[in-house]
């Protein structure tokens, strides 16, 4: 039972705060995406859909549709996808290795995983400049990919590990007793049990990778710009807030749509388990 007084005392202040500093700014952003850039970082009328046309490739200057913008959006998706896949390749077996150690060793390995997890993101990305510069790889797309995998792999391993920890290994023994070959036994008895952690890990890797501008800004350079860089540029040098708003809204919409689809398939608890 929730009375108005109780609401005001517990849920009220926090909800109000999120309303003012999260929902209202998102609405301001939506509004700005239909306005016009009047000057550097200045916004005014008239209302227009031009920014949204630009997002999908319309070039107002030459009055034609180009693929440039779509190429950036597509690159953001596949770079995020590829770095997520590489994180799975590196991290999924690692989670099993850690989970199968004795208590002391397991604790040590987990600490060794948490240290990079909590080390400042910017510093960890920056460190790759020192390594890759002698090989003339900065700036490049390879460097961006490496930096992303490096930055996100701890975020992937931890949720997978917590799923692997809970595995009921008797199911594997049962599958083996019933004569399943190793791969089939793994796929039917073990893999499904790791699925919640795997999905959480993929989302925790893919979503930040899709929106990042730091990694590609430091390691990638202008030729490998991602949607995050495009957004950053509109709020920096280009000073085109309406266009930047449309891009940001698209990015946010894509992420929320994906999560909504996931929550629908995983049931309402899906999102809560994620965090």
């Amino acid at each position, binding site marked *: 039972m929730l009375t108005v007084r109780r609401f005001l005392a517990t849920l009220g202040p926090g909800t109000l705060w999120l309303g003012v500093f999260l929902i209202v700014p998102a609405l301001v952003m939506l509004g700005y995406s239909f306005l016009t850039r009047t000057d550097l970082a200045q916004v005014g009328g008239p209302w227009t859909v031009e920014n949204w046309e630009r997002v999908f490739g319309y070039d107002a200057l030459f009055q034609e549709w180009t693929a440039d913008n779509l190429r950036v959006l597509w690159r953001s998706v596949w770079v995020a996808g590829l770095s997520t896949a590489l994180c799975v390749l590196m991290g999924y*077996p690692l989670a099993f290795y850690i989970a199968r150690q004795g208590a002391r060793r397991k604790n040590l390995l987990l600490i060794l995983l948490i240290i990079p997890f909590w080390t400042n993101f*910017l510093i960890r990305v920056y460190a790759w400049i020192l390594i890759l510069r002698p090989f003339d790889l900065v700036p490049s797309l390879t460097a961006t990919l490496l930096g992303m995998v490096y930055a996100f792999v701890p975020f992937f391993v931890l949720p997978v590990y917590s799923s692997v920890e809970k595995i009921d290994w008797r199911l594997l023994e049962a599958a083996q007793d019933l004569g399943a070959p190793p791969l089939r036994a793994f796929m039917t008895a073990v893999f499904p049990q790791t699925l919640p952690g795997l999905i959480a890990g993929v989302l925790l890797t893919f979503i930040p990778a899709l929106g990042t501008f730091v990694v590609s800004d430091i390691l990638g350079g202008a030729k490998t710009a991602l949607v995050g860089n495009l957004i950053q540029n509109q709020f920096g040098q280009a000073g085109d807030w309406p266009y930047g708003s449309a891009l*940001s809204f698209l990015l946010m919409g894509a992420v929320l749509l994906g999560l909504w689809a996931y929550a629908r398939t995983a049931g309402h608890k899906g999102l809560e388990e994620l965090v």
Partner: protein
Amino acid sequence: MIRRTHPALSVWAWVVYAFLYLPIIVLVVFSFNDSRFGATWTGFTTRWYPALFARSDVREALAHTLEIALVSTLVSTVLGTLVGLGLWRYTLRLRTALTGLLVLPIVIPDVVMGVSLLMFYSFVRSGLERLGWTFDNGFWTVLLAHVTFQISYVSLTVRSRLAGYGPELEEAARDLGATGLRSFTHVVLPLALPGVLAGALLAFTLSLDDFVVTYFTSGSGFSTLPVLIYTNVKRGVTPDINALSALLVLVTVVAIVASNALLRPRRQA
């Protein structure tokens, strides 16, 4: 239980750990490099560390980082704990919507949160200017932004801590004659406390670590350590930034090892 692991799995694990630690080790090593331009090794020196503390912008950014982290953690811990308790205590028709609202700051890309707050502040600023007020203080804009993402983490941590307990606890305390306030301070709060502390610790660390949201909301003339590192890195690799990074890595390692030693359950009672 210890199970056999395939040798290939062990090798792979060591490869991944080497990958995780190679950059950190290189960074620390290069912070002792005598070369000003840092590309090649020219000799061992410790001079970049004192040079770092001689920089007033570094000292200032450090102070800002700690101030923001402390104040935002205090505010968000109070607000987030109340939300977490409310979610636990009351049955709500809007529960799903409220959980969705709380998850939002965690799942939306930080660049989106940063730029939307930037525009929101500019919007509010122009409104206030019409009234003759000014609102141009990086401390406040960053503080409000940090609290916004911290509230979510604190409230979800507190709620999950209380998840196993039912409202009977509070009812029992009431039946035994405790007042509403007393049952809250003597029953509910002690149960929630580990969650509150864990949430506060998480909020503090997230504030220290945040670059993206701070970058967009700080405006000119106010920077925290991550923003300072970014602007320096954009200008090129400098040995004192290597030293600063190495120090921050050291702080992280010490904090994690210490909290692990403190929080680990004792073997003997």
